């Protein structure tokens, strides 16, 4: 989740671990997109969501049951 070189290490490790090949340009795109969305992803990581009761069988066509 960290920016810069930490993300680069995560990226390199994840790609290698999963066996996904990526050239330099693709890696630059990945880093750029991650950086663009990083603040939101960090907010999601840090949000207190522990008490959220699951919406079972969520029906997106309707308001959630209350």
């Amino acid at each position: 989740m960290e920016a810069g070189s930490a993300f680069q290490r995560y990226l390199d490790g994840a790609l290698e671990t999963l066996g996904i090949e990526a050239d330099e340009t693709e890696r630059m795109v990945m880093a750029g997109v991650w950086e663009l969305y990083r603040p939101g992803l960090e907010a999601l990581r840090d949000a207190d969501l522990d008490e959220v009761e699951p919406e079972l069988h969520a029906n997106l066509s309707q308001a959630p049951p209350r």
Partner: protein
Amino acid sequence: MSALDLPLREQAAQIDTGELDPGELLDSCLARIEERNPDLNAVVATFPDESRRMLAEAPKGPLYGVPVLIKDEWPLPWRAETVGAASVPGVHLEPGESGPYRTLRDAGAVIAGVANMHELGSSSTGNASVYGPTHNPWNLERCPGGSSSGPAAAVAGGLVAGAVGADGLGSIRYPAAYCGLTGIKPTFGRSAMEGHHIPNTVTIVSGPLCRDAADCRLLASVLFGEELRSGEAGALRIGVVRDPYWVDCTEPVREACETALEALRGAVGGEVIEVELPDQELIVPAAVLIAQSEEAGRLTPANLNALSPELGVINRGVLKLRGIVPGTLTARAFAARTRIRRGLAELFDQVDTLAWPTIPGVAPPLLEPNMELPSGTTSSDAACARQGVLANLTGIPGISVPVGLDDGLPIGLQLLGPWGSDARLLDAAEALERATDREFVELRPAALA
């Protein structure tokens, strides 16, 4: 004026009374595509024999004999969709009877061609596709919006009066706004979606792009399989969330939307209420992560390593990034969605609709799709996503209505309503059109005037 320039509903009405010959209308539609499409690249396939066969076999439905286009996101019995890409990872696309095709056919419509789209539906710009970029009829050097780039450019360019698009993270509303059209993202699950290459989607819906709300109502009714009856909008409690949805827009966009909103309020009564969204900072990441998770099962290392070199480098990078996103983040996105949906349901006890600019700036250049906003220079994709993805995350409907011009390029105001309020949103959009004397829905790109 050509009959092609009539509204969709007027074409249908004139065919019904015998004033207009549907065969001649189809011929003039195909001729216009041939004439104008080289500049727009809005249409990627025509099939005159199949179109004429549809007309010959068409039932006398609400769109009998009316030519329309369908986005390259659904199969037709004679053509597999391409999703604007050389290939879709892990998916074998085949011809077939998709839901939107079936509903159009059963309504008597004639599919005159397939409309271009942004590659894999992955951008709000429309500047990349295996068929090449689509061009905005208002300025050919500008983005038409995406991912329903072709449907929007085709309707704005006068090739047809209505087209079917799809909206997964704003993909109908952004191009509607960029091209000066009305486009509705229906409540999730109400419009036909069978045959889509992501059958498990919880974010994508089919929907219409037309010149005004009445045409959208007609085409949406066909896609819904039920009539969306018109009514009076009535006094509206209009919720506005100032920051960032209004604050971080260009001044012309903010002023045009403020003027339109005040006109709407003045016309129907009611009030404008400042409100806050639940978990506002989580909306974009949650929507993006949930949308990307719908295809994630196919993003195996084998499929990712076999991506077509013809696929754009941005999509190759994004797809591979999706392959390594931590699963805990996606799980948290679903938890955030739950809380946001519950908070939104409570908010809709206080207001009838939410309103903010569909797009924070007008259509950016095709070659450099950035926006200059008060917060700084930003990619138009990120700027648009902020304005648009709430509807996809939560399932609520949203509509974009043209409300102004800046530097000759259209501006759109977005109205969002509670689940199932599609007809009421269309009522509000029509009230807004009347309140502005239909000034902006009647505007046409200068090159076509």
